[in-house]
């Protein structure tokens, strides 16, 4: 028999069940995340926040990530300059390399690269820290001590991420432009004047503002997803590992998707 109807129906049912279960689970998670965000907003508007807690987190998320941001930003700018040189040399447009590197770093590479690197370093750390606190009942202990966990743990991390990322992105942009300058002037022996003049001519304040605004959103995504995944950790040490991985994956994908949408929105403004 070529077509086993029963087998086919069974397989279809299984497939439908998987799709249905996944969809329900996704919507459920989305709902819980929505409530989590609503709670964050409620606490942000109604409770007093401690500045020192936010500064502490800015230090951990921002200052702690500065080293890797400087390194990645510099190398990104260097590679970008090198690749641009190959193309521009063919059409005789070497004098525009500075502007291309600067615009690329300011509008795209700086904010996105910074977000992805910070997600890997600080986002994973946030999810792992809160996840460990959850499985060792430290979060429950805070609740019984009448300490609002959103006020004490979640909001300072979200705000610190939203503050740190634009600053880190600025560092990344500067380092990328300087890296590009180093390659163009000292390795490719191009005219330094051409590099700087093209930047001054073609880069506008709105480009920088766009990059900074994007980074702020990326920081918000990082903070929200990482704290959410950390707070809702369950299942022991394995659960912490899963939460940490999910925090990094979801934050990274959300950042890239948000990057497209924000670019589109900012373009129309």
């Amino acid at each position, binding site marked *: 028999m070529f077509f086993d109807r029963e087998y086919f129906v069974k397989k279809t049912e299984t497939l439908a069940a998987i799709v249905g279960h996944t969809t329900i689970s996704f919507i459920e998670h989305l709902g819980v995340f929505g409530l989590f965000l609503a709670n964050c907003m409620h606490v942000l508007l109604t409770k007093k926040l401690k500045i020192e807690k936010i500064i502490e987190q800015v230090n951990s998320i921002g200052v702690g990530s500065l080293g890797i941001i400087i390194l990645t930003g510099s190398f990104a700018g260097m590679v970008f300059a090198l690749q641009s040189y190959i193309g521009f040399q063919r059409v005789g447009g070497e004098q525009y390399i500075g502007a291309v590197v600067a615009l690329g770093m300011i509008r795209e590479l700086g904010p996105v690269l910074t977000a992805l690197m910070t997600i890997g370093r600080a986002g994973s750390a946030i999810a792992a820290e809160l996840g460990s606190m959850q499985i060792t009942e430290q979060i*429950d202990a805070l609740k019984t001590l009448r300490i609002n966990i959103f006020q004490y743990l979640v909001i300072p991390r979200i705000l610190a991420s939203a503050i740190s990322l634009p600053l880190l992105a600025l560092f990344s942009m500067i380092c990328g432009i300087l890296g590009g300058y180093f390659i163009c002037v000292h390795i490719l022996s191009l005219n330094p004047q051409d590099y700087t003049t093209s930047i001054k001519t073609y880069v506008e304040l709105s480009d920088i503002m766009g990059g900074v605004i994007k980074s702020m959103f990326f920081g918000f995504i990082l903070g929200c997803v990482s704290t959410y995944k950390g707070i809702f950790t369950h299942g022991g040490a394995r659960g912490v590992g899963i939460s940490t991985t999910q925090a990094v994956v979801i934050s990274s994908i959300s950042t890239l998707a948000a990057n497209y949408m924000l670019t589109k929105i900012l373009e129309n403004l």
Partner: protein
Amino acid sequence: MFSQPSIIIKNLYKQFGNISVTKGVNLEVPFGKMTILLGRSGEGKSVLLKQIVGLISPTSGSIIIEGVDITTLSEDELETHFISVGYVFQFAALLDSLTVFENIGITLIENDVSEQQILKIVKEKLALVHLDESLLSRYPGEISGGQKKRVGVARTLVSEPKIIFYDEPTTGLDPITAGAIRELIFSMQKESKERTTVVVSHDLELLQYADYAALLHDGKIQFFGPASEVFESNNPYIYQFVRGLQEGPIK
């Protein structure tokens, strides 16, 4: 049997997916007394305790603490409810990024109490649990299991709770430290006549300090009575449990 209950639990059910943990718990915890909740490992004693404290929502039923049904309270209202309740966790649940001083005084620190006042209160509570002041600057990772439990008790005492819950306070401790913790729980209970203590444990030694005992099995309270009568009771569940018999209704 006793003057007035401090906690009234009515028909409490808790399900995790298809698994029922509490299957209609009914219990009245007497005011100003120490009650020990006995039961085998995995019977759901801690789950029951967490429901009473408000950390886990029950599937159905009610938990009335000092006249208020906490199952109907919102998150914010629950925060207020925690004022009168203290919970000592099984593994102390100290915040490992904070020092012993910060752990004990965390509620005061978060409420912007002056540093001098915090130090005074923290030292006072530390003395109550018989710990040395030299521990104040140490982190939880640098102190022993017994010391952690004492710090956990001290942290709970800061808010002067009317009801204290202890979750397996002597589990995993050597006999001498366990004995010291039992004495500590007893002295904390004696400190105030207004204080109600609930201890979840399978440590039978605690019976000599307790006023009442309850036994949880199969998601229900199978025995409740004065702790002094536990060994004389003919209730088949408690009879089997305290004697450690293999034969009986507890499988």
